[in-house]
């Protein structure tokens, strides 16, 4: 495998221009949608089959170091998890990992069972009613295989979205967190940068200025497939009980006749 590629989204630099969201729509030729009224500039409420990059606008009362309202902006995207729930769930092999470490859905193989939709800890994977398949960010697979960065990173005017090799970006991100903490952003933290952390690390990781839950991210996302082993054992236990029950039922009536 080639050196893992990554996107680092530094939310402290995001100005909410949504150039990333537009660039994503244009490059990936995603159809227009009826807008959601969210009460903020954010559109849509969440990822859809036609919105792979989404700038979240979050108003957090008392979120600033001086106690003022913090206006948090975050360009959200598929996390391209190192241990991906969608990839593990896929029964057709349509979801695969590229040589660059990104996670992709082969649209010619996906048969639309929607198991991946339920298995994504971040609610990224969306079902497309028109094509009948699951859709999500492709990490601009066509671009990265031709020496270009993802469209969103390319379009970002503030380098809030950075594209590069994962190891380089993690070092950069750690320095940035230290700088921000020194500036008084006490809650500044990396999300998904640690490859020994949850889901084996995220190949699209973030710098957040508040708790992950403030951004609608799970504090400690869990790989759904971790429950398969225990639940299988419990099912086997249930099967044994049913088997014993059947033996009891058949034995009990072994001798007698009844009316």
């Amino acid at each position, binding site marked *: 495998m080639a050196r893992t590629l990554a996107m680092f989204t530094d939310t402290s630099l995001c100005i909410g221009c949504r150039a990333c969201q537009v660039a994503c729509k244009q490059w990936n030729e995603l159809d227009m949608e009826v807008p959601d009224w969210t009460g903020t500039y954010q559109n849509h409420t*969440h990822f859809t089959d036609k919105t792979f990059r989404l700038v979240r606008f979050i108003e957090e009362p008392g979120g600033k170091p001086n106690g003022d309202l913090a206006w948090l902006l975050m360009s959200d995207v598929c996390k391209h998890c190192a241990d991906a*729930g969608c990839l*593990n*769930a*896929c*029964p*057709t*092999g349509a979801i695969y990992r590229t040589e660059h470490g990104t996670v992709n859905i082969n649209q010619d*193989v*996906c*048969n*639309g*069972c*929607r*198991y991946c*939709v*339920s*298995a*994504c*800890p*971040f*609610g*990224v994977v*969306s*079902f*497309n*009613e028109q*094509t*009948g*398949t699951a859709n999500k960010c492709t990490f601009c697979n066509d671009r990265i295989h031709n020496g270009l960065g993802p469209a969103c990173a390319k379009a970002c005017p503030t380098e809030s979205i950075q594209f590069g090799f994962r190891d380089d970006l993690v070092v950069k991100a750690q320095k940035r967190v230290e700088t921000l903490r020194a500036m008084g952003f006490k809650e500044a933290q990396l999300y998904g940068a640690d490859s020994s952390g949850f889901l084996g690390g995220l190949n699209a990781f973030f710098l957040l200025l508040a708790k992950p*839950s403030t951004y*609608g991210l*799970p504090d400690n*996302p*869990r790989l*759904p*497939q971790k*429950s*398969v082993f*225990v*639940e*299988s054992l*419990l*099912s086997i236990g*249930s*099967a044994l*009980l*049913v*088997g014993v*029950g*059947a*033996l009891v*039922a*058949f*034995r*009990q*009536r072994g001798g007698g*006749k*009844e*009316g």
Partner: protein
Amino acid sequence: MALLQSPHWPVLIDVYFFLGGLAGGAFVIATVATLLDSRRFRDISRVGYYLALAALIPCPIILIVDLGVPVRFMNMMRTFNPLSPMSMGAWALLGFSACAFVAALLTLLEDAGRARSLAGAKIVVGVIGGFFGFFLAAYPGVLLTATARPLWAGGHGLGALFLAVGASTGAAAMALVLMLIGRRMADGVATLRTMLVLALLIQILSVVVFVVSVQGSGSAASLRALATLTSGAYSLTFWLGAIAVGSILPLVIGLVDFKRRSPGLTALASILVLVGGFLVKFVIVAAGQV
């Protein structure tokens, strides 16, 4: 609060979970009957194998129709992924279909008088198919748990519950068919009634384990999701339909029936178990997708 998406599986999928479980349960009971005494329990064995095939036939059709791209259903056979209960379920459905077909065919050959006794062959197919049958009944529960949905992923024992429902509904459906054809009713039906009562006990125990484990998961999202089941939009279906009328009442009737031995009571208990078995699967799938 984490933002998640729902797979929006329709009620048709619940019908599949119900029929697949029933088929698996009936097949296993038929196999136990064949193993213990293929002559004495011949009727149970016959009804079980025929019923398993009949209940199974709509299953692949339902699954294919539900796909976003139905013509690509064979893509399920491209991988063998032990971590994905859906992948394993697809293989189990294929394996079970083969066994259920052969078992029903062997039974038909016996019934048509073409062969005196095919008990040996039936036992071989029955044991292999019984494994697949149990798998088919249980895997949907494991599948639901292996998601990011807070209700399903928050608890334990959904696979165990679905398996027990498969056994109880399988026994109930077999008892009803036996009563309808009215042959050697007393012995076979009484056996199935005992089976049904025991499976109901495991079923109720599994529901308790599931609800208590979600309650104790400590996840706010799971507790919120549980509330839709126990006190929210689905609470009436859950408590009254799935638990009271669908599990407890047939259990009580079944226990009373041990003394009374009334065909009417057995039939009533069987019908209630079928309704309750569907509702318990339906309500958990529905509440988990809200």
